[in-house]
């Protein structure tokens, strides 16, 4: 116990000894975490909205043109029997055309003339009891003969989904690069710490220090940097989100249906991920250097 306290203290002293280096290391880890935090926030919010829309509007199952009225009724019964289905509505070609018209409202001329082509297929609109049922219902509906395509009715937030997909790839890319950079920088910081403690390490070895005893302060130094960065990032991203959330009504107005999750639904996830990530970066980064430069 006493030894552990001592080793933690040594790790902390190392941190302070390498002040500016420590600060810049924490800075880059914070950058990584903030990018990742934005990703989590975006992902969760978009996901939440997708779920809301799915629950409200359900999925649309398109029916083969060859299906007879009897077939349609039979299919409808089959869908109703799938567990988790709340209700099913049949949408014939005319209604589909009317719907399309609504979507293209203001662009009526676009649909003029194709009225008679009946290119709009008939379909069922299937809604779920619970959002958790959506995937199983979807795959069950897909299995039914005479249904050639099933998709969620997400037209209202399709733009949001599309943008968020691009943003996610971008954020994960940048986050990944920053993560690698973080690990590299922390391992470099620990390498310098190992060098500046060379004398201590040399003497320790002669006295009979175990490898674990020699390594632990450096691992702790790395872990502390990761944890400090986690806390700083958490405070920053929390402030950021609270400010954003205060403006949610305006943003909602401009995005239409989009609604924001309250921060109480998000913070524990972000904090948890930050702490785990901080420890991972710190311990992994320092271990690389210890292995390489601390030939014990």
């Amino acid at each position, binding site marked *: 116990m*006493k*030894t552990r306290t*001592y080793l933690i203290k040594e790790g902390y002293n190392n941190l302070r000894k390498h002040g500016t280096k420590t600060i810049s290391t924490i800075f880059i880890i914070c950058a990584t975490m903030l990018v990742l935090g934005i990703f989590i926030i975006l992902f969760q919010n978009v996901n939440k909205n997708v779920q809301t829309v799915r629950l409200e509007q359900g999925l649309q199952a398109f029916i083969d043109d060859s299906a007879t009225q009897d077939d349609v009724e039979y299919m409808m019964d089959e869908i109703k029997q799938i567990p988790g289905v709340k209700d099913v509505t049949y949408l014939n070609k005319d209604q589909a055309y009317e719907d399309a018209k609504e979507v293209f409202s203001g662009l009526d001329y676009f649909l003029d003339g194709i009225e008679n082509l009946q290119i709009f297929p008939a379909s069922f609109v299937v809604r779920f009891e619970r959002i958790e049922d959506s995937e199983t219902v979807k795959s069950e509906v897909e299995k039914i003969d005479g249904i050639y395509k099933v998709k969620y009715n997400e037209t209202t937030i399709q733009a949001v989904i599309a943008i968020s997909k691009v943003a996610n790839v971008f954020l994960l890319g940048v986050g990944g690069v920053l993560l690698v950079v973080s690990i590299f920088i922390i391992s470099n910081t620990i390498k310098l710490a190992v060098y500046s403690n060379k*004398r*201590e390490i*040399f*003497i*320790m*070895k*002669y*006295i*009979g*220090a*175990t*490898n674990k*005893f020699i390594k632990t302060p450096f691992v702790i130094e790395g872990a502390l940097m990761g944890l400090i960065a986690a806390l700083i990032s958490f405070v920053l991203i929390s402030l950021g989100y609270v400010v954003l959330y205060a403006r949610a009504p305006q943003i909602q107005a401009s995005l239409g249906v989009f609604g924001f999750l309250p921060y109480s639904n998000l913070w524990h996830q972000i904090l948890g991920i930050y702490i785990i990530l901080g420890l991972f970066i710190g311990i992994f980064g320092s271990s690389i250097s210890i292995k390489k430069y601390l030939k014990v």
Partner: protein
Amino acid sequence: MIEFINVSKSYDRGIKALDNVSVRIDKGEFAFLVGPSGSGKSTFLKLMIREETATSGKILIDGKDVGRLKQKDIPYFRRKIGFVFQDFRLLYDRTVEENIVFALRVIEASEKDIRIQLKNVLAMVGLTGKEKFYPNQLSGGEQQRVSLARALATKPPIIIADEPTGNLDPTTADGIFKTLLEINARGTTILVVTHAKDIVDKLNKRVISLDHGRIVKDSQRGGYQI
């Protein structure tokens, strides 16, 4: 306590630092290891603590075959041997007390043992009252005493010293040897590498002479002779 059996050591570039050395030093003995520069004295000590590994032969210390120690047992084995360097190897950003406590931390001594041992070894080397001094505030002789106290703190049954008075003037060196004799009188086995001819002659202890990696002389009550 210390036994070398047909030990040879060649370094990478084919230099034979020790050549078929056999010698035994018993528990409680005080012995000098002398010889010209490059004769293999430091190599002898390094083999004892497994800093280097013998090319052939066997080294037994306190019944343990040093060459066959498992990597994870080496630290615990080293605690049996206190090492004193010519250049003291102190931590200059720590006080006398902190330098000694450092060694006790390394072997994970209890708080109680740390307090007791600190007091004991400071008294043993005659540094009581200098606990809060930094090494730079001490004379060379005093610095070597700190290093000696650090080696003693972990209560090793063996102390080995590589030219411990090499950086000190003769009078100061006398003092260090006097302390080493006192430590030996309490039962610690001591092996000292030295070039201090006068002291070796005066102390009338066992002298093991190396030359070109071979033991050329081993006299129980010898003088310094190369």
